[in-house]
């Protein structure tokens, strides 16, 4: 019975994303970004004459990571603003009253919505990411070394953020939950860059900022892991000075960190279920 309810709500969430033109708006944004990147890469290719091949690969890797960051931002914004209204908005409008008076557990409803959002966010990352890889491959003949790992980590990053959005939407208003989730995502990214600067300058205190923020909200850590899977591994050996550039990553993501990200998702989802269960409608 529980599995049936979970799947029903997952399907409903996907249907909502499709019907409410979320897919269409995301597609428009993505196509604009991909078209711009295709144009940029083709220009990069045209300039190859003055680049050494190493420089060209360096540029391709950086621009790819930059565009993938744009895609991850779109995925983050899209899912955060989907996750926000899904609980808070339905409570506010009264839509949840008739549904939650059915023989359903609130935890199943939440899990179903979460599954639907994960499928939506990951589906977006895979489709847009693969298209981008294709563009880079066609224009500058570069194929990332670990495309599957890279996309999986981007999907995981999206999942972390939408789980946070879901927790927030059980507590605060729909708009606030979307804004807070995206704001925290941005703050963690900046804290990650600050941490990188601290590392470059050998300042442990500043470096700690990045480490702590990566533990509190694992989006930035997963994003750095994804970048590592997408960039040319020979590059940082050739140009160690670029090691601190915010769109390149020095190290792959560790298993311990992945485990922490998984545990983080489970914990946050559990807290969200508890808050939702106790909430008066």
């Amino acid at each position, binding site marked *: 019975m529980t599995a049936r309810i979970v799947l*029903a709500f997952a399907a409903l969430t996907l249907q909502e994303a499709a019907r409410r033109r979320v897919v269409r708006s995301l597609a428009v944004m993505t196509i604009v970004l991909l078209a711009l990147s295709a144009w940029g890469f083709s220009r990069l290719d045209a300039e190859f004459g003055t680049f050494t091949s190493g420089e060209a690969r360096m540029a391709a890797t950086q621009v790819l990571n930059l565009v993938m960051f744009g895609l991850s931002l779109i995925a983050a914004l899209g899912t955060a603003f989907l996750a926000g209204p899904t609980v808070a908005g339905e409570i506010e409008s*009264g839509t949840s009253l008739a549904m*939650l*008076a059915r023989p359903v557990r609130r*935890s199943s409803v939440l899990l179903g919505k979460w599954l639907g959002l994960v499928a939506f966010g990951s589906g977006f990352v895979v489709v847009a990411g693969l298209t981008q890889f294709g563009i880079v491959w066609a224009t500058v003949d570069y194929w990332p070394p670990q495309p599957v790992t890279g996309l999986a980590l981007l999907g995981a990053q999206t999942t972390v953020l939408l789980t946070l959005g879901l927790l927030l939407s059980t507590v605060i208003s729909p708009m606030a939950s979307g804004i807070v989730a995206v704001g925290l995502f941005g703050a963690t990214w900046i804290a990650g860059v600050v941490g990188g600067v601290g590392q470059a300058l050998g300042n442990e205190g500043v470096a700690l900022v990045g480490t702590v923020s990566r533990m509190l909200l694992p989006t930035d850590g997963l994003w750095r892991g994804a970048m590592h899977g997408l960039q040319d591994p020979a590059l940082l050996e050739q140009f160690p000075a670029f090691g601190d550039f915010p769109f390149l990553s020095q190290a792959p993501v560790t298993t311990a960190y992945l485990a922490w990200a998984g545990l983080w998702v489970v914990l946050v989802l559990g807290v969200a279920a508890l808050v939702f269960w106790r909430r008066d409608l």
Partner: protein
Amino acid sequence: MNADSAGALSLDPAERLLAELPAAPAVWCSGLRKRYRRRTAVADVSFTVGRGEVMGLLGPNGAGKTTVIKILLGLVRPDAGDVLLLGRPARDPRARARVGYLPELFRYQPWLTAAEVLDLHVRLAGAAVPAQERRECLAAVGLADRAGDRVGGFSKGMQQRLGLAVALVARPELVVLDEPTSALDPIGRADVRDLLLSLKARQVAVLLNSHLLGEVERVCDRVVILDKGQVAASGTLGELLGRRELRLRLDGVSAEAEARLAVAGPLTRSGGSFTVALPADQDATTVPDLVADLVGLGVRVHAVEPVRISLEERLLDILRADPGEDRR
């Protein structure tokens, strides 16, 4: 994650015994209390709705009617009190398997069609309702030709009609309707009355919260009147409305004749108009005997009009009565 499933599994033997009793009432609640911060919304409410019974929940705005309904359906957690729905403790979501609900705030996914909303609710209820029956359900609320239209384009009245269909689609044994006619035109209200009567005929229990007392009077077997979160009065309509009045227009009333009138019941006088509140247990001879005696005492009788107290008058009486007074 499964905090509420733990509750369902830990049925104690007493609850299991209750659940196994035959024909448990549709709703049984006892000692419900709910406070929102400093405001007490519900203070000690208990009542029962029998199988196949139509019960009206009445009371002024803010009396706690909607909160009581939400507690029954597990949408609001009571601070104290117990609820059994169709014999099962309401903590267990399965208690709501055969319950239909039209909320006071009725909203359905604007991006689904009317038929899809019904499909969703049938799936959530875990019921097996054939497509033909779902279409009939939409037709019963007057939405047969709008089944394929998105709810986003519906007027408020049409959304309330859809809400009624949602409440009725999964073959409920108990239907909870919170202000079911608030957005409906007079024809819609008449339709709802017919629906209520057909539910009554099919032995489906109904808990109805409505401000339209005429409707309540026509369809309800029993009413519970809430005021300030408490049960101010409850009983069958016969019990609550048993009191009748006799209005007389008289002339030449002596002190003796007035005393005779007072014997029949509490008397109020305004000029030549007299109103006697008759006791509930009056027999068929009370009025003719009184008239004959008055004529015998030389009173000229212009008009004699027996009046039944309306639910509205009774409700106002009860709500305006001093809290200390016995209101039954």
